[in-house]
């Protein structure tokens, strides 16, 4: 996918919707596109990780202890917790289909957040949504 198409895709995601095209272009210079086959473990629970992942195409399952916690699709992100605190991954993320992700390093993401705090707000909104969903699932369970 070329940069113009990626920027177009990023603008449709909640976390980058308000980021300028110029800033996204700068971010893309140090981001990497990664395509993996279905069944591939993209991040592994317990491992240290440097990348923030945004799904450009395809789908992935979030797994822990053999249990599926969530399914992520186009426009979703993962790896954000390690970007924030640098701690090891909290779950496995496994490609459900062939999947293409944009991978942004922890420092590039932090730099972008510093200059574009609205990204942090959007990430927080999504994190809260996930937390509430987990809480609800636990209450029901």
């Amino acid at each position, binding site marked *: 996918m070329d940069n113009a198409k990626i920027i177009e895709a990023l603008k449709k995601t909640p976390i980058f919707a308000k980021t300028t095209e110029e800033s996204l272009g700068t971010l893309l*210079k*140090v981001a*990497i596109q*990664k395509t993996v086959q279905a069944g591939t473990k993209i991040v592994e629970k317990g491992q240290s990780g*440097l990348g923030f992942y945004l799904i450009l195409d395809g789908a992935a399952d979030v797994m822990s202890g053999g249990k599926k916690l969530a399914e992520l699709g186009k426009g979703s992100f993962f790896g954000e917790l390690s970007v924030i605190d*640098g701690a090891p991954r909290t779950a496995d993320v496994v490609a459900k289909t062939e999947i293409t992700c944009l*991978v942004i*390093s922890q*420092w590039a993401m932090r730099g972008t957040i510093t200059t574009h705090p609205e990204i942090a707000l959007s990430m927080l909104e999504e994190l809260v949504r996930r937390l509430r969903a987990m809480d609800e699932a636990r209450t029901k369970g």
Partner: protein
Amino acid sequence: MGGTLSRVPLLCLGSAAALSDGRSWNSTLVDGRILLDLPPTAVINLRRHDILPAALDVVFISHLHADHAFGLPFLQLEYTLRCARETPLYVVGPPGLREQSEVLFRLAWPGLGRAELMPKRRVEYVEVEPRREFRVADLTVAATPMSHFGLQAFGYRFTCRGVRFAYTGDTGDCCEIDELTRDVDVAIVELTHPVPKSDPGHLDIARFTRLLEAVRPQGTRVFATHMSVPPAVGLEGATFCEDGKLYWVETRQRV
């Protein structure tokens, strides 16, 4: 003290000396764009961490031994076949760097030297002169001669986003180490022998400990790398680099 707090990431791509025990050879990525030494494992470790080799702005090569410089053919291959970028990559090293780089490329990839297959991204070689300050990319750099078996080996001082760094490369005991590490925020220092050992071309734990004591009053954070084995016990004030680990270093920017 006033000023803005500046934090810079430091990723250990490898921490081993030439005779590795299975760890990758010594290489450190500073601020996601400055590489300290270029062993054959550096490019593969960048890729392993999903970091584009095209993100590099400057590569410092301390000397032309294989575990510090033989990653050049792999980086050149990346730039020939995969990485397009507008700005040049600066490769900084001792005199003879350009020639060695060309020889290595021809030996490593025969047939790829034709004009149409030359790197898509310009590579600028900067062969250093001792103690003369110079600019590469946005960095002001000074190269200090180190003591390494009579080779032209250099340590480097540079400032990145307000954080003052020193990197020794390989060196035996010499007074230039103190010159190199004076008044820096971060010192990345070779520790080939984490035990007492006499070696004219490398540091052992005794000399490393003396260095720690010397820089402690100035608040320098010291990282040990290029270790033959990981040290068995910790040392107050020192961080022993671990392959794949990310560290954050900081200073208060002087205004």
